């Protein structure tokens, strides 16, 4: 998994609430048993003019310059709600998104982000709205800076905002760690647990 440390990048505001994973990648775009080849289907329902077509909708922000180079997304509350499909995160990652800033996230989506090197940052709605407003005045010049080691976001006007993420997620993103390999080191604990559990809840074994 790609490590995450610092990032200064163009950010694209899609300031809607409750953007669901069906919108991030429609089910019809998940055509193969694969984690790759999904970026083409990212936001397909909004990005293209007709269902199934690849004719770009010029109104959609990610079809506009300089947002085509965006590595950060800004959004309204509950981003990534709905279906558990990790394809939403794989599509965002392949398209080039490394960080999403929103007032809140769908729980499964947020976990999927961390496991794929995307940083989900929760900030108050007013702050996200303010960042979006600053970006719109000069999308190319007004970049957003993320400092993951220091847990801070810096707005184009220089204001810094602290954020928090669970320490285990922080470590995993900073070092690009594989969560399964980390847990497998605890195998003796898991074995001991199973032996005890077999005694107390035998009907499950």
């Amino acid at each position, binding site marked *: 998994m790609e490590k995450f440390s610092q990032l200064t990048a163009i950010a694209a505001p899609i300031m809607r609430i409750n953007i*669901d994973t069906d919108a991030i990648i429609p089910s019809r775009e998940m055509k193969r048993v694969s984690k790759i080849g999904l970026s083409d289907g990212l936001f397909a329902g909004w990005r293209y003019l007709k269902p199934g077509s690849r004719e770009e909708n010029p109104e959609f922000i990610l079809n506009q310059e300089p947002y085509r180079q965006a590595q950060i997304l800004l959004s309204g509350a509950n981003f990534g709600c709905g279906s*558990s*499909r990790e394809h939403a995160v794989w599509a965002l990652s392949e398209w080039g998104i490394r960080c999403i800033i929103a007032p809140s996230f769908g729980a499964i989506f947020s976990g999927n982000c961390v496991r794929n090197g995307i940083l989900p940052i929760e900030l108050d709605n007013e702050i996200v709205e303010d960042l979006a407003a600053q970006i719109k005045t000069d999308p190319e010049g007004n970049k957003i800076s993320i400092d993951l080691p220091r847990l801070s976001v810096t707005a184009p006007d220089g204001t810094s905002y602290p954020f928090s993420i669970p320490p*285990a997620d922080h470590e995993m993103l900073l070092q690009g760690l594989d*969560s399964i390999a980390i*847990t497998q080191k605890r195998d003796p604990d898991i074995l001991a647990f199973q032996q005890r559990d077999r005694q107390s*809840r035998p009907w499950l074994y």
Partner: protein
Amino acid sequence: MNRTIIEKIWDTHCVADLGDGSYLIYIDRIFLHERTGSIALKGLEEAGRVVRNPEHVFCTMDHIVDTFPGRTDRTTMPGGTEFITTTREAALAAGINLFDLGDDRQGIVHVVSPEQGIALPGVTLVCPDSHTCTLGGLGALAWGIGSTDGEHALATKTLVVKKPRTMRVSFDGALPYGVTAKDLILHLIGRHTASGGVGFAIEFCGQTIRELPVEARLTLCNMAVEFGAWTGIVAPDDTTFEYVRGRPYAPAGDQWELAVRHWQSLRSDPEARFDREIRIDSRDIVPQVTWGTSPQHETGIDGRVPDPADEPDANKRQSVERALDYMALEPGTPLEGIPIDAAFIGSCTNSRLSDLRSAAQVLEGRHVAPGIKAICVPGSSRVKRAAEDEGLDRIFTRAGFEWRESGCSMCFFAGGESFGDRERVVTSTNRNFENRQGPRTRSHLASPTTVAASAVRGCLTDVRTLEN
């Protein structure tokens, strides 16, 4: 110390405290389906890892398979066959339990796992599927995960989980006529928004819930995720134990008594503290229906399409405007009477035998309105057979409904079968997102009885106004 049911199950499954609110949690049962299980099994295999306890892992075919009679591995979904065959091969290679096409245990994952006695009170159960929270209806701690966490659970029998905050939602008072568990959960989401439960595990309790049969509790918990919650749960009681007894994978003999004694301890202590409490009087609730593109866009069937101008919050106002544009509805229009093109009964929310019975009760001796495409998809092969044994299939088909094989079907559109462009559907499913059921399809979520009544009249209908 006083603990909630959520904390009790959590503590029983805690392998290690990882600090700062994260825990390594033991997972009792893992369920997979061909849509997301395929990639989890394939990913595991590619990483050279094995399934730690294949006997505790189950897999069914529901998302991609067609629901037409005589179906095969070929499906109308583009590329769909690969999902079915990859899943089958990987499941057989891993030695997990597979409920394949043609197996009478096949069906929608969250219908099959209670039906088979795989989901049990007090177990932790995960599936790479957001509606896994359904199984809270049995008193299981069950939640949806991504495919990478699916691999983690398969390889280690554990997951790293942040301890959720707890919420108690009490429903009190008897359910009025025509009101179902689906209406309770839609009402909750409508009042407290689709993000009202973010970060919480929710215990549903109160007199209304105690009086609900298990299948209705499954419906209630199914949409906890639509409330934004990590999961929902109902404390197991005698109703639950009666439901579980004798199911194929349920404990039997001496083990049964032992299990029930443990299950009886799974209730929140009287002094247990929840981080948030919501109380709802069920007597105030009427049949609910959605008008927009989020489950929070809903109101009573006797209500009207809202006016965005009445919404003070700019984000919410935009969300309402966008939804009305997509749904092609004018502010102030009464919901009752909005003409529909199609009606759908099915999905992990509302496709169990009791759902089909309640819809059939409305449809008996009636027929769907001219031009309405009406489809019923039983939740599992066993539900289908049980329904046929009591003649429900004939009630549906005589009323003009198609009667299908079990599966997720048109709950979502994956490039295959769908409702048409701009068609308006009243549906017993759980998501009314843009394009969810088809390109530009307009979905109105409701209970199976409301769907049946609306199919008969050809428009959104208050089931209470149909003559008995």
